[in-house]
């Protein structure tokens, strides 16, 4: 089985950005052409997250979301501002295979159940942002307010799976944009607690990092900076390892 290597694209007010530790968002360009390039490179899957929708108390920018789906002949997932089943249905109709929930799940966990009933568990993922606390414990982070969620990570994972979640996407806030390796302790933790596939994101800098995460139990590895920066001067250039290199990510 091939483990997926997944570019994660962040969109803020219609603009593609890349963060470091969830801050200092740097402009990367218009999302439509970026998605088109990833599609041409035949990536395993692409995850598109609108990080401004929930902050602005808005639903998804449906026009943009639709125009992105039109460029995908690869598996694609969308998250950001999905408020209810109606929003989710519209997103599926555009052609997305999966929708990604975060804030609406914490407002009302039942939404996950409803969507998984509608389209099957493989169609809904839960995205969780995690920081490491002082004692090395894992704390859920709320990016919309920039502070802790005060809910237990294990309990949330378990509850999500019971409600029909098909996949957990786990983002390390501390490793975001650092390109110095994924948080393997976090991977170990989630691997023990999570019965469904999970993707770990945050810190991907080399394919070795990806292999390590997979050895520790991750089913897929997501990245941002790894796919958009080139050379130590971080020139913005979309890249994706060639098929021959990807074989090393196979389990």
């Amino acid at each position, binding site marked *: *089985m*091939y*483990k*997926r290597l997944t570019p994660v694209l962040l969109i803020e007010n219609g603009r593609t950005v890349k963060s470091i530790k969830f801050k200092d968002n740097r402009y990367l360009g218009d999302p439509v052409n970026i998605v088109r390039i990833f*599609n041409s490179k*035949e990536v*395993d*899957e692409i995850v598109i997250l609108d990080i401004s929708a929930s902050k602005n108390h808005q639903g998804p920018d449906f026009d943009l979301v639709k125009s992105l*789906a*039109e460029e*995908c*002949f*690869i*598996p*694609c997932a969308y998250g950001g501002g999905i408020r209810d089943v109606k929003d989710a249905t519209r997103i*599926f*109709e*555009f*052609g*997305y*295979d*999966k929708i990604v929930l975060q804030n609406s799940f914490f407002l009302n966990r039942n939404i996950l159940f409803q969507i998984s*009933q*509608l*389209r*099957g*568990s*493989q*169609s809904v993922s839960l995205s969780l942002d995690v920081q490491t606390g002082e004692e090395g414990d894992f704390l859920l982070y709320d990016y919309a307010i920039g502070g802790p969620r005060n809910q237990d990570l294990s309990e949330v994972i378990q509850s999500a799976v019971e409600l029909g979640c*098909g*996949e957990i996407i786990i983002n390390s806030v501390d490793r975001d944009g650092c390109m110095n390796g994924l948080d393997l302790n976090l991977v170990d933790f989630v691997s023990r607690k999570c*019965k*469904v*596939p999970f993707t770990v994101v945050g810190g991907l800098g080399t394919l070795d990092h990806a292999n390590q995460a997979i050895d520790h139990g991750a*089913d*897929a590895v997501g990245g941002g900076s790894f796919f958009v920066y080139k050379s130590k001067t971080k020139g913005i250039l979309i890249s994706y390892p060639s098929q021959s290199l990807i074989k090393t990510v196979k389990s």
Partner: protein
Amino acid sequence: MSNLIEIIDLEVCNVISISNMIENIGFETKVVKKPSSLELGKKLILPGVGSFGPAAKRLKDLGWLSYLKSNQDDFSLLGICIGMHLLGNGSEEGPGEGLGFIDATVKLISTTLSPVPHMGWEELQSLKSNFSLNQVELSKFYFSHSYFMECENDDDVAATFSYGGQIFPAIVSKENITGIQFHPEKSHRHGASLLRNFAELNV
């Protein structure tokens, strides 16, 4: 016009991706909701995502169950994912009658070695020659499902994939009926080649 591909829309999944991909490779498509909207009715694609129960219900309520069963010899049919499951007798996943074109029951993937749902890219093992894989690089295709089709006759299985230490059907085929477990519309150029093979089939 004999290459017009009609895509059955049970309204349980988006048909846009398949339609887009086929149009992109240069063939005409039409999305049909009811049998009466069929133009040629010669090349049909039955896509499906989600779960068996609602799909089977729509199949029946929209009149497809009876239409397809009554006209079985008149068309080439390609079922994708839940569409493939609908080609069988029924499913553990939910209530409802399948088309019965392939003698098979749909069951839950049960393995402790790998997580379910199965989401990812797999290589196929081809068991017997099938139009769909003509000149298609046997590279990876994208899967996203929790249930698989268990066939009574090994002959009906054209290609398999392995997952969690077990082997499952990737492509089932009997005469003019074909089912594929994976998503060609998400498998970029490999999927496009497979759909082109279907589009170019002589009916």
